[in-house]
Every structure is written in C-alpha cells, then in structure tokens.
C-alpha cells in the first residue's frame, strides 16, 4: 500500500456518488452513539418548533389551586410554585434553549474560527494585533462582560445571546489558530501561495477544512456550553427573565428551595438541559469522526 504524501485536503466528494439516505444509514450503523445523539437533537428541534401545538397547557397560566402538585394524570411532570405545568414549560423551554444554543454556538465558533485561522495565516503584525485583542477579551471574566451587555442593552433573549457569544469568540479563535498554525507550516500551503492563489481562497478552501475537526468539536461543545451559561446567568439574575419559560430559569429560586419537598421542579429541567447538551456532544463527536477526511482509508 503506497503511502500518499499529504496533499491538499479534499472535501469528501461523497454526496455525488452515494445517496444521502445511504450515508445516513451508514452513519447510524457505524456510529450508534452519534445516531442516538442526532435523534435526540432532532426531537429537541421538533419540540421547539411545535411547542405550541403539542403542549397541554399555556406556559404562563398560573393556577393557585394546584401549586407544587406532584406528577399526576393531569400534570405529567407536576406543577411549579405558581401552579404552572412543568411539562409545558419544558416544551416551551426548548425553544429558548435551541435558540440560545444554536445562535451562540454558531456565531461564536464561526466568527472565532475565521478570526483564528486568518490570524494564523497572515502571521506577522496582523497576527500580533489580533492576538492582543483576543487576549484582552479572553482575560475578561465572563460575568463582567455579561453584566455590561445586559446593563447597557437590557435583558432579553437577543442580549443574552450577545452576552454569551462575545466571550466565546476569542476562545474559538485561540483553538482554531493553534490548529491552523500547525497546518500553515505544511508545504502545500506554501505551494498554494507560490502558485498565486488569493488569500481568501487559501484560507477558505485549504486551511479551514483542516481545522474542521476542532471547529466541529467547538461547535457542539459550545452548543451545550451556551445553554449552561444561560442557566448560570439566570442564576445571577442576568439572563432571560420570568415569566419566560427557559430551562435555566426553571432551575433557580423556588426549584432549589423546594428541592426536597417538590423535587420534580428541578429534576426535569435539569434532565432536559443535561440531555440536550449530552446529545449535542455525542452527535458532534461522531459527526466529526465521520467527516474527518484523514479518517478515510481510501
């Protein structure tokens, strides 16, 4: 078996050759963990979209006659301190979670990766300056940034997204840069430059695909992290506010107080968060394994 020298990375040209259904089937067969993760993610997204259709109650309606009721036929997951149905609030909560998770992860990881790779590619002064700016934001504690964003712009879901995304960008940039640095030294990049390809082309076509692995890991990790960060911010009073249904919000205040007397209030949102983050990560791991061009032995 001849050992091929490392060549310009090719995005696997599989789509044209085999139907996507067959690909999915292969994926499920080869990577069962990832398939489970993907299924859970899909369910989450579906639930988020159809919450108002499938939820048994309205998430905002209080019922003082049925406060802190344990799970029963009428309320499958019990009610919270205001008599609001926990199941309904979890279903609606997936909307907030999916929105916050995807927006933050996507913007954070992508903007960060582009900055990191560009910085590594251009090196020299550009790299120095970008690095310093990234360092400045990295050195900043998350709470301060979040507080500043929330205080100046107010609470509300778009500002929470911004408050979480901003600290993610430099972290993504750092990891992407460290991967890109290694690649930059490889001969084929020099060859491409010598051949006169434009910067943008080299970055996007040749370098980015090779940082695809850490990028995907970051993306899936950030998806989960964003949801967890939102929960922490809510804990500090800087996140989404009541009476919005959001998993992180459901975990604080009354849920902790009644942890012994009415544990369903905290268990189910906690489970929802853990499950979602778990699934994202499982799926992301397996996706990354599947897409990594160097894992193909042919």
């Amino acid at each position, binding site marked *: 078996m001849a050992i091929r020298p490392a060549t310009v990375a090719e995005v696997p040209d599989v789509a044209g050759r085999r139907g996507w259904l067959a690909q999915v089937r292969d994926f499920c067969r080869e990577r069962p963990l990832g398939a489970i993760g993907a299924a859970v993610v899909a369910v989450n997204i579906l639930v988020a979209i159809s919450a108002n259709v499938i939820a048994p109650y309205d998430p905002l309606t209080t019922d003082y006659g049925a406060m802190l009721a344990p799970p029963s036929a009428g309320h499958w997951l019990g009610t919270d301190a205001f008599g609001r149905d926990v199941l309904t609030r979890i279903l609606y909560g997936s909307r907030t979670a999916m929105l916050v998770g995807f927006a933050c992860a996507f913007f954070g990881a992508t903007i960060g990766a582009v900055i990191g790779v560009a910085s590594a590619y251009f090196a020299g002064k550009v790299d120095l300056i970008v690095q310093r700016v990234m360092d400045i934001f990295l050195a900043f504690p998350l709470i301060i940034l979040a507080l500043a964003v929330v205080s100046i712009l107010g609470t509300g879901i778009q500002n929470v997204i911004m408050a979480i995304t901003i600290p993610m960008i430099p972290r993504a940039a750092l990891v992407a840069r460290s991967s890109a640095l290694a690649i930059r030294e490889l001969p084929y990049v020099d060859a491409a430059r010598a051949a006169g390809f434009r910067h943008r082309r080299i970055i996007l076509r040749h370098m980015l695909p090779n940082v695809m692995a850490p990028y995907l890991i970051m993306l899936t990790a950030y998806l989960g992290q964003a949801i967890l960060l939102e*929960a922490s911010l809510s804990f500090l009073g800087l996140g989404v506010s009541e009476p919005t249904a959001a998993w992180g919000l459901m975990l604080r205040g009354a849920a902790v107080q009644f942890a012994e007397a009415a544990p369903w209030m905290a268990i189910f949102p906690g489970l929802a968060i853990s499950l979602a983050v778990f699934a994202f990560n499982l799926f992301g791991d397996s996706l990354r394994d599947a897409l990594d061009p160097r894992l193909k032995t042919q």
Partner: protein
Amino acid sequence: MAKYIVKRLLLMIPTLLGVAVLIFFLMRVVPGDIVELRFAGESAFAQKENLDKERARLGLDRPLWEQFVTWMLGIMRLDFGTSMWTGSPIIEEIQLRAALSFQLAVMATIIAVVLAIPLGVVAALKQDTWVDYCVRIFSIAGLATPSFWLGIVFILMLLIVFKWLPPMVYTPFWVNPWQNMLQLIWPALAVGYRYSAVATRMTRSAMLEVLREDYIRTARAKGLWQKLILSRHALKNAMLPVLAVVALEFAFLMGGLVVTEQVFNLNGLGMLFVESVARRDYTLTQALVMLVAFVFIFVNFTVDLMYAWLDPRIRFR
C-alpha cells in the same frame, strides 16, 4: 529562545493596557452609582449634598481621563488603591480570597489532568470500542451537568445521607491542612469533573489526529513495541491543543467560579467579583479584573513557551 521569551514578555504590556482601558470605561458606562447604592438605598432621608460630598471624597467628580491616569500611575507603583465600598486597601480585601481561589483552581486542575490524560489517550487508542464509548459518555456527562446543580446535589447528599457539612469557614492550608482539605475537596471535585471533561475530549481528539499520521499508522501496523514508542511521541505532539485548553480553563477558574463559590459558600475571588460589581465599587472591580487578566496572560505566556519548546517551528517566527 531568549529572544522569543523577551518578545513574548513585551507583548504582555499592550494586552494589560487594553484590559485596563476596557474595564475602566465599561464600568463607568454601566448605570449605577456606588454612593447612591450605599447611602440612599432605602432611606428616605439621604440628602443630595451629603451624596455629592461623598462622591468628591471618592474622586468620582474628577474628569474621566484624570481618574484613569491616577489609577494607572498607582498601578505602576503597585498601589492598587482602596476599595470604594469599605475604604480598606485592596490588597487586604483580595489577599485571603485569592489564596482560596488559587488553591481551588490548582486542585481542580490536578484532578482534571489526572483524569483527562489517561482517559483521553485510552479512548483514542481504543477508538470505537466500548472503552471509548464509556469514556466519552463519562466525559460528556461532566460537560452536560450544570455545575451549580452538581454543587447543590453534593451538599444535599452530604447533608441528608451523611448528615455532615463541610467546614463553613476557610482555614489556609498551612494553618490546618485537614480542615482546609475537608472544605475544598468537594468544590474541587465538582469543578474538576467538569474541567476534566473538556480536557478529555481535547486529548482524545488531538490523539486521534496524531494517530492518523502516516508514520504512526505504519508503526502500528508493524507491531506493539513500535506502537508504544510512537504513541508516546504522538502524545507529545498531541499535547499542544490540550495545553491550550487546560491553560485557558485554569485562568478562568481564578475569578470565574462565581456560582460554585456561592453554592459551597466559599470566600473566593468569584464572590468578591460579583459583590464589587453589584456595588459598583470601581476600584475593587478594576483591581480584580487586572489581577485575573494578569494571571491569564501569564499562564498564556507559560503555555506559549511550552509550545515553542515542544514545536521548534513556532520559535522561529
């Protein structure tokens, strides 16, 4: 190498300056005034001249650039000033809390690394076997659990099952190591578990990358011994991104464990942070941010050195 070190040291300065400028202006942009908060909160009897006098005393009526320059000059003399809230020197305010946060960060890092590296390596070597699956599930569970939730569960468990509570007051390690450990081991475990999850995954993924290298594959095909020798080699190369992640997380631990500290009732920097921000205590917040930033930048610097040592190609840029 020496030239590299000097260069990196010099680069710390603009970053620190940038952080100083950013925190200075950020704090002043956020609405809220410490004098109001302290004296006029719920009392109907606070009078305007009193509040103004207090503001003048704290130097808040000076023009912004003057406040900034005064502060900067102070820093260069290593005089961080006094807290606007208590009037005590900031060094005093920070001392004990920094010791706790630092110890917690170190303990969590040790736990994380001790867990992550072996697990990550094993998972990479035995990819797609049940060993790999178990490690992945274990580490992902660590990532998925909200840290404050874990803390609350810990304490409840200790209380309900063992009827025992960790010490409520901090004793430094050199005063009474047993009490000190009793208090800090639980948050260190809670934090370390999460921390290890991130590091395990990075280790695994980095190892996998390196193991795909052709020379490694050849060695594996050739036999066990070669595989072992080259695995160690592979590990060394895989360490770069892992180092980056571990270092980043460590610096984060110094001031970022706000929720954990609250749940375990730890008198650390995270709590001090939240309080100083809530009180709009500019001088204390600024000093804390500078401290945390410095730790981060220094840790980064150390990592950069290690990068340069492990991968000579980087040195010569």
